[in-house]
């Protein structure tokens, strides 16, 4: 495992850079005013990036496939969300589906 100081430096870099991203968007926004269509476009951009985040974390482990149990759980959660199930039910159902599939021997 990596030594403590290097680990702390990596974390500090991530924390400082992430804060920089957060603040820069806010500062730009405060100076530039966006017409409504551009605002919609930015909202859509956030949804598209989040959809990609959900898909990659569900279907990839590093650069490989994590086995069907995890995507199956996420899919179960997604279907419940589509049926307007409460948030907590969605998340717990996803974990439970994955856990039960693994218990049944599906990786």
């Amino acid at each position, binding site marked *: 495992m990596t030594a403590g100081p290097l680990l702390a430096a990596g974390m500090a870099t991530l924390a400082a850079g992430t804060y920089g991203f957060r603040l820069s968007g806010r500062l730009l926004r405060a100076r530039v005013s966006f017409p409504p269509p551009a605002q919609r476009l930015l909202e859509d951009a*956030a949804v598209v990036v989040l959809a990609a985040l959900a898909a990659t974390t569900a279907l990839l482990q590093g650069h490989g496939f994590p086995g069907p149990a995890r995507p199956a759980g996420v899919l179960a959660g997604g279907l419940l969300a589509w049926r307007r199930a409460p948030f907590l039910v969605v998340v717990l159902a996803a974990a439970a589906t994955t856990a039960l599939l693994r218990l049944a021997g599906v990786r």
Partner: protein
Amino acid sequence: MSSIYRTLAGPPLRHIGFACLAVWLVGVSYGAVAVASGLPAWFPAVQGALVLAGASEFLFVGIVAAGGSPVTAALAGLLVNARHVPYGLALPDVTGPGWRRLLGAHLMNDESVLFALAQDDPARGRAAYWACGAGIAACWPGGALLGAELGGLVPDTAAFGLDAMFPAVILALIVPALRGRAARRAALAGAAIALAAAPFLPAGLPLLLAALALPLASGDRAAPRAPRSQRSLP
């Protein structure tokens, strides 16, 4: 806090509470996974408080646990977190200037942005942003702290399906936006682009490439949009 309560009392506050509870649970899984990967027990909670962006933290832990350098892990995490720039541009002014903006920027995350954008008037958007941001700033590191303690006790976190929770949280958050056909088309195409690019690019970059699908989202413009209240979050 009391004015936030008055402004949001009812369903929005309850939804934010559930979202924070779910994030807390995912935080528990993150703490447990981090410690099970060999990271020190202090690490997940401290990183959780300072970075406060779950996906990048899972990624950081994953890369370091696989023997990668923390520098690589930090760069990959930054790629994932670059999405906060468009978030910051998309949000109307929810914080005001000065120290509020400096503090408020740290509370910006997937959930607080989505809840703020889902409200139909600026005052509610502002209240939702602060309530959700503060709730997650407490629940995420708090969950990680507990998870790090439990991590030593639970030998195999995968057996509990904890790795399915994070994508499910994100999916639950974007489902209301996906009810629009054009937005759904763009999101599916963006996901496909990211998945196709993932084997060839360092983690994080495929997420930014997904934005290439954005032109597909423009179809909903011609037809009048559903009222905001119908697009509100779970």
